[in-house]
């Protein structure tokens, strides 16, 4: 969503703004340690922390881009990717108009929403059966 030509306020994101960037990165480090030690996963809601314009970007930039990326089509698009730190994922949900409606940092080996869901598999089987026109048994 770049607005190159539109006039923008000259608000610079800087560490002097909310001072929430550093603590958040440390929280991620702790969560990663816990995940390694105990296998306990965790989720951080990026929208629950007051961040100045640009600060969310600076977190995202610090975490970087890793090996895995996935695009989901679920009630509007969602984007999931692993950051350059394995085990740290960014999950971004968009609405139909491509606005971010929620954004999470997940510390796990793979975010749940990426996996095929049992309920959907049941539906899928039914659909396939119908498609093939054969009896289930």
């Amino acid at each position, binding site marked *: 969503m770049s607005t190159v030509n539109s006039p923008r306020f*000259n608000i610079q994101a800087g560490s002097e703004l909310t001072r929430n960037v550093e603590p958040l990165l440390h929280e991620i480090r702790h969560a990663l340690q816990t995940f390694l030690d105990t296998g306990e996963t965790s989720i951080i*809601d990026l929208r*629950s922390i007051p961040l100045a314009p640009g600060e969310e970007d600076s977190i995202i930039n610090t975490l970087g881009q890793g090996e895995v990326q996935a695009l989901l089509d679920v009630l509007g698009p*969602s984007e999931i990717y692993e950051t350059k730190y394995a085990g740290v994922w960014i999950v971004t949900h968009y609405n139909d108009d491509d*606005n971010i*409606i929620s954004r999470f940092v997940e510390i796990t080996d793979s975010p749940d*929403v990426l996996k095929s869901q049992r309920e959907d598999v049941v539906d899928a089987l039914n659909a396939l059966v119908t498609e093939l026109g054969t009896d289930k048994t």
Partner: protein
Amino acid sequence: MTKDLNLKNGSLTEISPEKGTLGETLRKQGVSRRSFMKFCATTASMMALPPAMIPSIAKALENARRPSVIWLSFQECTGCTESLTRAHTSTVESLIFDSISLDYHHTLQAAAGHGAELAREVAMEENYGNYLLVVDGSIPLDNPGYSTIAGISNLDMLNEAAKGAAAIIAVGTCATYGGIPHANPNPTGAVSVKDIIKDKPIINVPGCPPIPVVITGVLAHFLTFGSLPELDHIGRPKAFYGQSIHDRCYRRPFYDKGQFAETFDDEGAKKGWCLFKLGCKGPTTYNACATTKWNNGTSFPIESGHPCIGCSEPDFWDGGGFYKALSMPTDNLTQTLKYAAAGAVAAGVTVGVMNRSKKNTSNKIHVKTTLEDLEK
């Protein structure tokens, strides 16, 4: 089915069993489990709940029954409904609306006239004790004829509808605190829902209009927990109204440094400095605009260069002017100052002259004591 609703125990899920659970409704609409997970995650974020609660939210929402909602509009401008229907544009939020059964809303419903009123009566009767009552607009008390629906005064309709309601959500500053109709000199004698209804749980969702997500967030909270969200001292859900605009404003560093825009188009305004001098009411206003933002998260008034007008606070209309800085007196103090000084000079001179003449008289009648006097 007529079981009494105990809000504290989360039994709103008992509402209207014949309407099916939310999980069933969504599956029938072809909403996948993944989509539902996204919906739950977003709802949690929207309600400012910790992500650890997402699984329990999912479970509660899945089993939630669609509650019947009756929406009454009194002295209002339909801006609140406008705001709410804007929330509808996004797929996830619209699920919230699919998960309620909006049985009466005279602006949105297709039915009109007797048919519309019948829908309200039927919904009230069928769901007696269990439906959610949403109200926007204030209620005139001076003369019931000032605002009526189908010949029924606002006051009567509110009283009647409130009787069978499980809880009331007052939407917008008019319903919550009287709003613009209540503004000085309040020609209709407008009051808020809370001024009339005393025996039902009332959630205030003020704002002119309220942020759409806040309205849906409160509904989602009801669906999920079947209880009232935690409220502040004037009945607002703390999750959204817990912090002031000023405390979450990204222009705050400029306020702290004393860098202010003096006009709407000076250098300071262009640099995005603090709008306090232009009348910003952010410091005394509690709302979620600074984090939730408007128009699907695009921006909020301060981000667009306009000071906060304090629309989610009682009597925001009478705060001495939107463009008058918070620390300025609301009335013309200069004139008072002049008149007081002028009057005081007159009074002071009078008192001074009186003191003088007193002094002179005492000087005059003063008799010197002589040696003879003492020897007497």
